[in-house]
């Protein structure tokens, strides 16, 4: 095959994959009324996603918050303005770092597990078995995972935000001479300056996490359900699930930030 044809076929395949994944999302949303029948399984997936990723998410968030405070604090100290360190750390964590860290960790752990599980089911005819029993795989397998991750990603993000800010506060106190009281006052001020119960800084971040949760679940389920060709196909599906989820997390994170902070202000 000549290089042009190969490139064209590759692009066509990717467009086809994207369309199929988007269609999967639409079908999962359409299956929402059937969620009560899948509640038990949804709770299992949610519990699994939350418990399995909580420790690693907290560790990464704590260090990310600490690094953020350290790097920002070094520059602020040059200008003698370390009093706003708490504010900068809190806003960065809530707007961007918290959802991003949580999303990437969920994609790497739960997303890969979903793709592997569904991929294995696909290549061992279990998906076909569901189809021939008239059990819709979207309703039975995809919907619980989408709902579970859509709920768990924002919840984990809340923890990430809190632990990340706490990580920053330790560095601020120990290395930058910013007392805990000053740091947390600055955090509180930045998050409650609008006087609203749910500040924009927080809800935009949580909205991002909600979108990331859905994206990770749909992309990973899609990659699993499209797997073929045995173990190699499952491996490629897992690879595609993590790669595409992380890519979409970055691109959608940018779009959501742009929408809330530039387009609507």
């Amino acid at each position: 095959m000549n290089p042009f044809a190969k490139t064209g076929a590759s692009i066509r395949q990717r467009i086809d994959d994207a369309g199929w994944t988007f269609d999967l999302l639409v079908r999962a949303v359409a299956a929402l009324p059937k969620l009560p029948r899948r509640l038990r399984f949804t709770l299992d997936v949610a519990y699994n996603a939350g418990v399995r990723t909580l420790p690693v998410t907290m560790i990464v968030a704590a260090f990310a918050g600490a690094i953020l405070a350290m790097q920002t604090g070094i520059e602020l100290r040059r200008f003698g303005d370390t009093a706003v360190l708490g504010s900068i750390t809190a806003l960065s964590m809530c707007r961007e770092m918290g959802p991003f860290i949580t999303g990437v960790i969920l994609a790497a752990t739960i997303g890969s597990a979903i793709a592997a599980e569904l991929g294995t089911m696909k290549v061992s005819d279990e998906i076909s078995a569901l189809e021939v029993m008239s059990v819709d795989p979207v309703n039975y397998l995809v919907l619980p995972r989408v709902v579970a991750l859509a709920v768990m990603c924002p919840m984990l993000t809340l923890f990430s935000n809190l632990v990340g800010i706490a990580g920053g506060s330790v560095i601020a106190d120990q290395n930058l001479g910013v007392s805990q009281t000053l740091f947390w006052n600055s955090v509180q001020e930045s998050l409650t300056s609008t006087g609203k119960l749910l500040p924009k800084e927080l809800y935009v971040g949580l909205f991002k996490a909600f979108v990331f949760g859905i994206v990770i679940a749909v992309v990973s389920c899609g990659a699993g359900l499209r797997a073929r060709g045995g173990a190699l196909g499952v491996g490629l599906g897992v690879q595609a699930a993590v790669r595409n989820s992380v890519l979409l997390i970055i691109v959608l994170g940018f779009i959501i930030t742009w929408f809330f902070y530039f387009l609507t202000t």
Partner: protein
Amino acid sequence: MIALNGVRKRLGDRQILDGLTFEVPDGMNYVLMGPSGSGKSVTLKHVIGILAPDEGSVHVDGLDVPSMDQRQLMDLRKRMGYLFQNGALINWLTVADNVALPLREHTRLSKGEVQDRVQEVLGMVGLAHAAAQFPPEISGGMKLRAGLARALVTKPEYVLYDEPNAGLDPIISHQIHELIVEVRERLGVTGVIVTHSRACATHCGDRIGILENGRIAVEGTVAEMTASTHPLARAFLGGGAD
């Protein structure tokens, strides 16, 4: 009745089915034999609507399967059972939950009624003792029998058996053959059986068709086929065949 007429199917670079035509009258077991990769399992997937033909027609009970929408296909599949080569059990469900799955999804039976029916079919396939076990904990033969129990639990009108005795020892194989015959005789179920096994074909089948180059090369009743001098019939059903 199941009727395939002039079915052609290409998968990748290979022409798998090339004008396949056969009929299975109600209440009959039709055995489909042929070399590995000759399209036997692909044929079953056409009958149940997982695959659609490139050309030709597939009719089940007079209904044109390829032209059905998803809802119509689901309705048709509720009347059919399908036994996969490896059982295709859902790994995180116990054997009993696997068998109960179609009942829980499509019927309004009470918990007790589902349990009773599941125990009944598990007893039929000799797996009552393994109801609480998970698929990774049981042997390949047990998985196949559990898959058969799941195919029969809804009392289907049609059952498609894909290698129903693959990996089973001769004693269990014989029990499965008896069961397939019993299902046809007692329940009047119409079956299509894909197998390489001479014993399975001659014990369970009413008619036997042998696939070659994507179409039926030779076909007949069990008596006709075992007496046939056609090279394929001799290879699959002759004295030396298993």
